[in-house]
């Protein structure tokens, strides 16, 4: 039986000081042009936590605003607010920076994160109120250090500083004197990814009817690499995250593939569960500090706020078929192959129609396509256009070419089968997966019968190949629990043969 999507969670961590100190656009500018106007102006363009919570696409990401509701809000969205917006959402939460820095220490098992004691004391009070941060995690938070020690570690020991509201509140130490793969920069990047992943897993467990002990396996599908100088991408963020999240019966592994990794990982997870290898598999990922403020120069130039000020994370639970939750059709998988080619027609054919053709479905037989769901509020001012809209145009154009829709219907194709984008530009975070939570609910509510999840990855960025990559799969309404057709036992066969021979003998005798 097909495996099902049992739950999904989505979290954000607001990290404005990390935009300044860890986003590559800013760190590169500081190296190349330290006196630049951009760096001088940047600070004035940072948002407050309250603004970030009220920002419509962020409320959509954590599940409080549906894609349909977001589409009704006129763009641009950066000057709009959601009335009554809250930190906690149906699928997750938006964590403020001070709490997130403490969470980084809770996720650090090598005593590499040092925090200033007054900062810890103040933030601890808020964290104690957090519904998901229990005693086990609070016990991981240390009392804190004198600020002088932290200054010394930053100035003399190559530690990566941690700021909150421009004040030095801690640092991440290097884990080796010479090994660049264990440098403070890399450890900081990996710990932020780990902490956002852990927060997503915690929300997934809490917001769905799941026990931690029931999770068998975790697959991390972020874009970071952990290891030392002898194995730069040695990995297993997954097991490291499972440990902090308390998934005692779980092991795990990492799947990589740039932004396409979440879709690859979900196909792997669905196949593992369908095969009976594991019963409950979590596919999860944390965020990426490097991408903070990635399009900041264009945003500042246009007088906009820095909109890439959050780290993203998500977690999806794939489980055995329960007869209720949407099924994953691992027989309807699309893949961009080595020999596919790079023309848009070839790409969309490989990802969309290759699988549909196997079962005689039209492009319009899929109710919703979840593509690259980047928030256009971020990408349009930076000249990258509306990425989801561009993807829907390509799928719609192929539908016209195949005769699935009339040319006149092309304009409305995206409205019917697509959505506006709402996810932050955190690489793998917006790729296909943002709709899993809403899609599961839409299928359960019978608003739609199915959806196609498409992930794309820019492999050429790693300079190992010029190729791009992409995979897709279909989710659909559960057909209900059906009895597995059992095989006939040897005993039954013997009985049937004996019965037949007996009848034959009786017939012979009667003749």
């Amino acid at each position: 039986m097909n495996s099902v999507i049992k739950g999904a969670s989505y979290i954000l961590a607001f990290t404005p000081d990390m935009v300044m100190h860890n986003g590559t656009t800013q760190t590169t500018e500081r190296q190349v042009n330290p006196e630049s106007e951009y760096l001088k102006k940047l600070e004035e363009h940072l948002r407050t936590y309250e603004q970030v919570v009220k920002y419509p696409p962020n409320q959509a990401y954590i599940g409080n605003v549906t894609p349909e509701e977001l589409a009704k809000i006129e763009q641009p969205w950066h000057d709009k607010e959601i009335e009554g917006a809250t930190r906690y959402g149906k699928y997750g939460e938006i964590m403020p920076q001070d709490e997130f820095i403490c969470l980084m220490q809770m996720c650090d098992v090598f005593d590499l994160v040092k925090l200033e004691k007054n900062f810890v004391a103040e933030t601890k009070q808020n964290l104690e109120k957090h519904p998901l941060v229990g005693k086990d995690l609070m016990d991981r938070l240390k009392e804190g250090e004198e600020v002088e020690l932290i200054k010394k570690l930053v100035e003399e020991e190559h530690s990566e500083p941690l700021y909150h509201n421009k004040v030095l509140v801690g640092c991440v130490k290097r884990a080796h004197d010479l090994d660049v793969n264990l440098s403070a920069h890399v450890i900081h990047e990996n710990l932020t990814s780990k902490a956002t992943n852990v927060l997503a897993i915690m929300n997934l467990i809490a917001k769905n009817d799941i026990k931690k002990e029931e999770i068998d396996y975790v697959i991390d599908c972020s874009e970071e690499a952990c290891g030392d100088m002898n194995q730069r991408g040695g990995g297993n963020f997954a097991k490291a995250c499972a440990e902090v999240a308390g998934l005692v019966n779980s092991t795990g592994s990492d799947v990589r593939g740039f932004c396409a990794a979440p879709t690859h990982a979900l196909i792997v997870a669905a196949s593992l569960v369908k095969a009976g290898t594991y019963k409950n598999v979590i596919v999860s990922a944390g965020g990426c500090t490097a991408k903070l403020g990635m399009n900041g120069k264009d945003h500042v130039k246009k007088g906009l706020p820095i909109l890439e000020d959050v780290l993203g994370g998500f977690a999806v639970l794939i489980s055995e078929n329960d007869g209720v939750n949407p099924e994953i059709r691992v027989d309807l998988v699309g893949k961009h192959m080595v020999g596919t080619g790079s023309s848009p027609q070839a790409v969309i054919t490989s990802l969309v129609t290759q699988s549909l053709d196997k079962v005689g479905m039209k492009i319009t037989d899929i109710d919703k396509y979840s593509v690259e769901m980047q928030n256009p509020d971020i990408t349009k001012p930076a000249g990258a256009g509306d990425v989801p809209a561009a993807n829907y145009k390509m799928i719609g154009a192929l539908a016209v070419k195949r005769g699935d829709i009339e040319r006149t219907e092309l304009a409305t194709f995206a409205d019917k089968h697509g959505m506006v984008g709402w996810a932050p530009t955190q690489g793998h975070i917006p790729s296909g997966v943002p709709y899993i939570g809403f899609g599961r609910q839409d299928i359960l509510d019978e608003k739609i019968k199915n959806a196609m999840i498409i992930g794309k990855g820019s492999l050429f960025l790693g300079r190992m190949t010029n190729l791009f990559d992409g995979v897709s799969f279909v989710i659909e309404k559960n057909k209900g629990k059906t009895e597995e057709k059992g095989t006939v036992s040897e005993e039954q066969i013997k009985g049937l043969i004996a019965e037949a021979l007996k009848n034959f003998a009786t017939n012979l005798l009667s003749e």
Partner: protein
Amino acid sequence: MSLLQGKKVIIIGDRDGIPGPAIEECVKSAGAEVIFSSTECFV
């Protein structure tokens, strides 16, 4: 004669639009010489 006949062309393709190799094939068929081609990810 094609607009691109004998011209040298620098191509920057878009992962979510038209990738470099696809543009490369088009401009080559129009008689241009590709001196640089890459695909970038703008997100």
